[in-house]
């Protein structure tokens, strides 16, 4: 009986691990860097985490996790409330339809997939925020942020892969 209970608690913990780790990475991305270009080179950690986990473990990282990450980013940032939730949902929708092309493929293919899908997501976000402010936001910082997110993907996915391999076991 106790074993069963321990097993179910463990399984529950494992199901929450990707979301909790993604939350931690997002919170860490808001730490002051005191770096000369830090106002423009922060990677879109939320996008990386959603992409990684939906591609690798869609069974434990679902729509609920995506919404929680989006809401947390909305709370921390100064963009209009709902914008980050919107962008993560766009990525989720894209992954629902295109994710199968990147699942189980070599790393370079998934990286390439992230480059494409995060570009589309950031363009959607840029358009929505531009409509909200009734003026086009400068496009160069968006591209700068995009390039840095793509460049940071290997490191962030490595961290996520570590969690996936050591903290989460495949269900038999």
């Amino acid at each position, binding site marked *: 009986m106790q074993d069963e209970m321990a097993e179910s608690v463990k399984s529950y913990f494992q199901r929450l691990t990707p979301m909790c780790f993604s939350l931690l990475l997002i919170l860490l991305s808001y730490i002051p860097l005191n770096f000369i270009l830090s106002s423009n080179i922060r990677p879109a950690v939320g996008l990386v985490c959603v992409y990684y986990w939906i591609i690798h473990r869609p069974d434990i990282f679902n729509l609920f996790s995506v919404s929680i990450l989006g809401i947390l980013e909305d709370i921390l940032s*100064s963009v209009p*409330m709902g914008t980050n939730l919107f962008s993560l949902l766009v990525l989720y929708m894209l992954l629902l339809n295109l994710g199968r092309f990147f699942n189980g493929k070599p790393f370079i293919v998934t990286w390439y997939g992230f480059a494409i899908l995060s570009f589309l997501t950031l363009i959607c976000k840029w358009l929505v925020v531009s409509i*909200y402010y009734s003026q086009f936001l400068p496009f160069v910082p968006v591209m700068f942020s995009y390039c840095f997110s793509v460049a940071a993907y290997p490191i962030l996915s490595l961290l996520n892969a570590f969690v996936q391999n050591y903290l989460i076991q495949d269900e038999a």
Partner: protein
Amino acid sequence: MKRRRSLFIHLSYIRILAKKFAIVILFLTAFALMLLNKTESVILEKTSSLATDLVSPIVDLLVVPARAIASVYDYFGEIKEVYKDNQNLREENKKLLNLYDKMKVLEVENKLLANLLNYVSPPEARYITARIIAEEGDAFSHSVIAYTGNSNAIKKGQVALSDRGVVGRIDKVGNMYSKILLITDINSRIPVMVEKNRVRGILAGDNTSIPKMVFIPLDAELNIGDRIITSGVAGVFPSGLPVGQIASVEKNNVTVKPYSNLNSLEYVRIVDYGLEGIITNE
């Protein structure tokens, strides 16, 4: 057997429908939040401030080890510069002592002349020093979160200054943490003027590191390096606070480089000048 199979198919169909329905609901929620934000709803503002208050302590906790690592790195990096800095500071101190004497004389003279003219001086400022615990800077917004403690003196719209000049204004006030909108954010609009010829304009952030000065008279004479200070128009910011200097002057495009290094803010002074201006909490 057949019945059970059809029930299973029905259930999976309902599940797919529910999933699609949930996505639609969440998209609608996101748009509803944006619309509410646009209407500057008080409820959303209070909820957002409360949420910031709940989340910020976690970031605050994570900052401690990060700061410790950074300070060790800085220590070894700066140790080489100490001797040179010390000499420069001695020179600077001599100049400042001279300036201090002159300032004291001018202060007395100013007071006497103000009394002579029955001049009503602006209210005295109150300062609150706050530590920056989180910074956000990407293509979509520029802001920081500061630990302001359990202070009732913090109000929306108050000026945030660094040791060099204006960095932004209070955007959201929580119980312990407040969000400061930086002058580079797209929402930031500050009435400013050129110090030497008093040409007025508005400093408008555009999410780049160099904000623009707009609504300048066509015949205004502007030069690169001119000091930009707050003009005090609209009553939100007091006049005379240093903001930055003109970085480029082109046709229809004047950019201003802020004095404050907005990428490495550690502490800010939140200043209460007792000015209500056009920004209120209600």
